[in-house]
């Protein structure tokens, strides 16, 4: 068991800087998820922790020990690849035990570990099959089994579920969560899927363009996004962002005038704005209520999902707004829609995209 510490880590491929200085502390036994859009450097960062990529500058420590010059195999990490990377010419049994066999472990020592991993992952009846005879989910479990038998201090997962179909993904998600609970090891998990991040993580690290945008628990990121990027990335469907201007309205309150002329008064919560400052108002679709007085919009599209209904509407100035209503709500396309908005759930961002007011409903 070990904590992972990254200090001012950078990575360049030639002249291209991929990771631009990352500081991060991952506690022992924590489930940490790196999330971000494609090309944000999350996989590179994981591979640097694994030792598959050199660290250009900065320091990496696992369990308090500096790792820059340590071989991947001596770092006490095990990695599960997106592509599973099973050895196609070996049976499941040989795949799982390969690493141990090749590093001088005795068969008597390997056998119980193999049995334990196979039982944990329900692979016992598949041990003599080749990878080509397995389904996607089974292959994924073999890849995880290969990591388990090494009893690593840190598990690294590189988008392990992205090749599975939706139903299997949900199932494997809970299995990995259970595994984390059973093993108690530190796990670092890379994904671009924010649902995976929200459901599995103790700690989410949102990466964008090689820098950390925000680190926090899933709900912290949802309720108190530090900037527009995190606000837009966490939460599905995406947070609505409406440009406008803000002015002080006395008694610590802030009045926001949206582009279409509508006015919203927010509790400043100690934050101040200068008169006429341009801002962006952020509000999640689930915090909007159709049929109440507030914003006026025209319905462009309605999606009836049964459990809920999504309305995609346009404000008078043309900006798009998504509204999540209960499953019984109905509105014809082209009809006008009154949208009530809860001022307490409104986020306010300055011109640089940094949050001024968090619409944190848990306050």
């Amino acid at each position, binding site marked *: 068991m070990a904590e992972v510490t990254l200090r001012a880590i950078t990575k360049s491929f030639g002249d291209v800087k991929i990771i631009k200085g990352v500081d991060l502390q991952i506690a022992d036994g924590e489930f940490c998820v790196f999330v971000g859009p494609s090309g944000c450097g999350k996989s590179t960062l994981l591979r640097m922790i694994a030792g598959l990529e050199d660290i250009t500058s900065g320091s990496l420590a696992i369990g308090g020990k500096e790792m820059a010059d340590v071989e991947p195999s001596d770092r006490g990490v095990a990695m599960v690849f997106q592509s599973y*990377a099973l050895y196609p010419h070996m049976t499941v049994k040989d795949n799982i035990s390969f690493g141990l066999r090749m590093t001088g472990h005795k068969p008597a020592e390997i056998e119980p570990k193999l049995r334990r991993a196979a039982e944990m992952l329900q692979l016992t009846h598949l041990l003599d099959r080749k990878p080509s005879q397995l389904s996607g989910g089974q292959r994924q479990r073999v890849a995880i089994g290969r990591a388990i038998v090494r009893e690593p201090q840190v598990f690294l997962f590189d988008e392990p579920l992205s090749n599975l179909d939706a139903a299997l993904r949900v199932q494997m998600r809970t299995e990995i969560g259970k595994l984390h609970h059973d093993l108690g090891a530190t796990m670092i998990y890379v994904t671009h899927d924010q649902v995976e991040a929200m459901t599995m993580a103790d700690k989410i690290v949102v990466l964008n363009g090689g820098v950390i945008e925000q680190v926090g628990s899933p709900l912290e990121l949802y309720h108190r996004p530090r900037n527009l990027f995190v606000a837009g990335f966490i939460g599905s469907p995406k947070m609505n962002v409406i440009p406008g201007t803000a002015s002080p309205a006395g008694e610590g309150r802030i009045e926001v005038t949206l582009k279409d002329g509508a006015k919203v008064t927010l509790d400043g919560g100690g934050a101040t704005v200068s008169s006429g400052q341009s801002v962006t108002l952020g509000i999640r679709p689930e915090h909007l209520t159709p049929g109440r007085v507030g914003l006026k919009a025209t319905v462009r599209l309605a999606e009836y999902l049964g459990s809920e209904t999504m309305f995609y509407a346009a404000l008078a100035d043309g900006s798009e707004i998504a509204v999540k209503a209960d499953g019984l709500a109905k509105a014809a396309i082209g009809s006008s829609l009154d949208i009530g908005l809860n001022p307490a759930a409104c986020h306010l961002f300055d011109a640089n995209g940094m949050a001024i007011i968090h619409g944190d409903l848990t306050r």
Partner: protein
Amino acid sequence: MFPRPIQKSAPWLQASYKVLLPIALIVWLLPLIGIAVTSIRPSSDLAAGNYFGWPTRFAGVENYTAVFQNSNIGWYILNSFKVTIPTVIGAVGLSCLTGFALAVYKFRLNLVVFFMFVAGNFVPFQILAIPVRNLTVQLGLYDTITGLVLFHVAFQTGFCTLFMRNFIKALPFALIESARVEGVSEWKIFRHIVLPLMRPAIAALAVLIFTFVWNDYFWATIMAQSADVRPVTAGMNELKGQWKVAWELITAASIVAALPPVAMFFLMQKHFIAGLTLGATKG
């Protein structure tokens, strides 16, 4: 579906296909058929000018027996094996190693080294004949099996490296990385992961190099002189006879000499089967 099955095209196309295909086949095979038929002709046919007609009688048995009785062809075939088998093992073995190094490791001169291997293939070996002969004489390797093997290995490894490097490059790199994270040494990665997956490439290359080297006439005549060393391609000359060319014997000997590469092909065929990496990665 591509290519479109011929059964689905217009009737006139189908008809012309059925007529043209056998014609093309026969034209293609004509030289081979000619040699096969000549090898069972009695020598009187050839003396009478019956080159392409029906043989007057079947003389296969006496021709083929004569080949073995009138010449050292058995010995030459053995020489050919002595040259070809070590060359195949040497060239394919070496290129597995060079291919692995060039495909897996990132080092500064990687591409330069790779291009040197490839560029070597573009040098016509006729211009190398005299320097190579001089070199072998100086090294004391002239007119020895070892000399022939060494030079064949040297000349074939370039092409083999190109082939192997590209094959290994196409394997999922995550397999190697995954083994590295597991602490498996580089040699064991090569031996236990890459080598088993290279089986189709090794089989294909072995057949190819076997055929190249077995059929080589150029180096066989330049680097070998004595009957002890001469491979079958050069040794067949002996059947030419002093006064006349005994075509029926030469063609029979050619057929005999052509059998080992054909046998090699059928032996290795089952290893070509693709899809060995199936199931390695996503499904």
